[in-house]
């Protein structure tokens, strides 16, 4: 049973702030796949924790469990944040839920002083920023309709005070002028900070942050970090931050404790990085894309291939691999992206607020493999969505073999020759693997896939599903001029990786676009 293994850098082991949260043997499984496996941890006051681990290791699950959004299958969670200790033992007997004051819910977690922010922000879109923060105020008498109805004076005083506090907080964040604007019209950085402020206004003493820096540019990252620093120094709030490898370097010097989640537990894992100070993990060059001929890049590059690097906006890099016999020169563009701007829900995801006027632009030529490396939150999946027609481009143009794709439906684009494999929604649960291949028009690939052919997709492992998806891309029905693979390697082990890379490389016509997240040392796969 793994005990707590948190590494405090530089500070002596009596780093005993009092214990805020303690868990014991926490377990959670989703349909057979165990995500948390007998997990123990201790959160102490004053700590600034970085919760890290590989993709899919369960960081978000752990965060959801600790903040009351998800019930674990078994285990114990103790909260001592607000002074009055509360213990939750799972599984909870059904009769315990009959008492409405003793549930395991997000609102009860907040009463315990545990708050969280969301990766997709989740501000209340139809209300102003001021209202978003004022709303978080706990125990507002005006929220009792009886008081609202019969003694309005009792809450109007309180409301004036709350309003003052909200404005103060907004002023601190430099968002004073925006206090009346609707929450769905502000920039990503501003929204992130407002969401943090809202969580603090709710009385949070232990704040869990889900990827607070994702998708932000340098200035916004700075302002978010400033806010977090002031939360620690002025309010004494304890932080637990879940952040992706690429943004972890920004937390260098700020984080005091590391929690590495691996194999469903927190603590030591194999590898040489774990011991010692956080410096080793955090100062790895997460910002730089890998150009070594190792890992997947090496698999895709044949010996005489020409490799060109082209930096794109906001830290992304497009690596072009021009295979010798296949590349026919720059006269045959397959995919042209011109000044593309894509907005989703009021936010500009691609193009726009990073100084580069005119959106995203690049061209992919016949015979090239384009590898787009970008940090999480950059918008890789959005770009793929725009190219395939699943998302609407707000401005700009996407051309395929010289013709504009505006107004063309997804399936028509597929018929014309654009084929895409998305990063996470390619599964057809109740169909068997053989049926999927038949549907894709590639039944011959069954032989490559035996003995898994008859099994239902939902029973396959993550890696097997991904491999199946990759193989279903080839066939008379959909052999096309542009193949797009959105983060296709995340769950493959080395032999599968080789199979997949060989498959991608075997495309003799057209162009290939592969999107890959930045890799950190711990996630790189070496041959």
């Amino acid at each position: 049973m793994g005990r707590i293994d948190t590494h405090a850098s530089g500070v002596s082991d009596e780093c005993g702030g009092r214990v805020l949260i303690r868990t014991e043997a926490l377990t959670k499984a989703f349909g057979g796949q165990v995500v948390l496996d007998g997990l123990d941890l201790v959160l102490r006051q004053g700590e600034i924790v970085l919760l890290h681990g590989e993709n899919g290791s369960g960081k978000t699950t752990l965060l959801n469990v600790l903040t009351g959004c998800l019930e674990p299958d078994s285990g114990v969670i103790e909260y001592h944040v607000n002074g009055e200790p509360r213990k939750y033992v799972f599984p909870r007997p059904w009769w315990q839920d009959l008492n409405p004051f003793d549930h395991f819910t997000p609102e009860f977690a907040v009463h315990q002083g545990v708050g969280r922010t969301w990766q997709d922000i989740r501000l209340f879109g139809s209300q102003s920023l001021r209202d978003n923060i004022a709303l978080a105020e706990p125990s507002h008498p005006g929220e009792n309709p009886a008081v609202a109805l019969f003694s309005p004076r009792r809450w109007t005083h309180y409301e004036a005070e709350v309003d003052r506090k909200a404005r103060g907080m907004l002023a601190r964040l430099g968002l004073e002028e925006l206090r009346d604007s609707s929450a769905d019209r502000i920039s990503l950085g501003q929204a992130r900070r407002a969401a943090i402020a809202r969580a603090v206004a709710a009385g949070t003493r232990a704040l869990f942050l889900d990827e607070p820096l994702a998708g932000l540019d340098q200035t916004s990252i700075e302002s978010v970090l400033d806010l977090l620093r002031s939360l620690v120094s002025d309010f004494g709030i304890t932080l637990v931050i879940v952040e992706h490898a690429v943004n972890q370097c920004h937390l260098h010097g700020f984080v005091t404790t590391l929690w590495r989640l691996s194999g469903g537990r927190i603590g030591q894992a194999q590898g040489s990085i774990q011991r010692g100070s956080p410096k080793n993990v955090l100062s790895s060059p997460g910002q730089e894309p890998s150009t070594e001929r190792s890992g997947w890049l090496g698999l895709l590059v044949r010996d005489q291939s020409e490799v060109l690097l082209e930096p794109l906006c906001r830290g992304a890099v497009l690596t072009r691999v021009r295979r010798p016999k296949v590349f026919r020169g720059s006269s045959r563009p397959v995919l042209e992206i011109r000044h593309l701007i894509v907005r989703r829900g009021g936010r500009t995801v691609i193009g726009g607020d990073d100084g580069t006027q005119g959106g995203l632009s690049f061209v992919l030529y016949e015979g090239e493999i384009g590898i787009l490396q970008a940090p999480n939150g950059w918008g890789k999946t959005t770009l793929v969505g725009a190219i395939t027609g699943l998302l609407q481009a707000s401005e700009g143009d996407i051309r395929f073999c010289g013709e504009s794709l505006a107004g063309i439906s997804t399936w028509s684009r597929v018929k014309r020759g654009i084929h895409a494999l998305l990063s996470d929604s390619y599964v057809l649960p109740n169909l068997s693997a053989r049926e999927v291949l038949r549907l894709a028009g590639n039944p011959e690939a069954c032989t490559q896939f035996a003995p898994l052919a008859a099994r239902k997709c939902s029973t396959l492992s993550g890696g097997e599903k991904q491999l199946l998806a990759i193989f279903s891309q080839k066939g008379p029905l959909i052999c096309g001029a542009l193949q797009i693979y959105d983060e296709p390697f995340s769950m493959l082990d080395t032999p599968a990786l080789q199979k997949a890379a060989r498959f991608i490389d075997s495309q003799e016509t057209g162009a290939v676009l592969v999107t890959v997240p930045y890799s950190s040392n711990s996630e790189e796969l070496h041959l």
Partner: protein
Amino acid sequence: MDDLIRRAMQVFLNGLISGLAIALMALAFQLVYLPTRVFFVGIAGLYTVAPYAYLAIHTSCGNVILSSIGSLLIVSLLAVLFEWINHGPLFQKGASDGAHLISSLGMYIVVVEGVAIIWGNSSQTLRTGVDFTVQALGVVLTKSQLLIASVAVVALAAFVGMLQMTNLGLRLRALSANPTQFALYGYNVKRYRLFAFGLAGLLTAATSLVAAFDVDFNPHLGLPAMLLAVVAVISGGRSSFVGPVLGGLLIGVLRAEVVWYVSSRWQDAVTFAVLALFVVFRPQGLLGGRSGLELRAI
């Protein structure tokens, strides 16, 4: 004792047969819900139209077969129309579930009130003459019951066959599993949605017609029928096509038992009690699996 067993068998069979009708309707509802996630209230309107379409054709041609086929066709086309002018465009716009529901409700109202204006609100029946009965193994079944049973069994068998063995069925299943990926394989999602709606209309019309041959019908039977179908979907399991069928049979048998052993006034109360029990204790239904990794905030 023998009498008791025979009585129990009779009640059970009655329930099974009425359950088959509910199952068929539940399948129709699920045919729209699974692939498109639309809560198709309009199905109640389709249910209403079927016997009236039959009447309209029958008064001009007098042929039972022709009128039945005509009615099935008209209702299927109406279902396709609902998708084409309403749900399809809303889907393109990315409208919320509420928008689909309300517009569906609006169309239901227009259809039902239209029928009421043309044909009036009073009850009619398609059955001519007295129902003959068949006796077998001590159990009595009416001709209408046999009709319901045979139509339902044939329809269900044909549907299962299509679903599992044909390419069309494979595509329908794929659409239900993941519409995005389905589009990415190059299939025209719009066309297959229209097909799903049309098929749902066909099944609804069949259910409504056989019921109209059995009992009276009036313009306001659609929503209660839909309600039963939805209870069947929820109790049977709403993430597959099999669940609703099972749920329908279950509800049918349960209702028949209640009618016999308690009173017919309590049928609905028991049905809703079952709905409440499933919603509270087993929301995924008997056969349901948790679909998707949703954050289940209790």
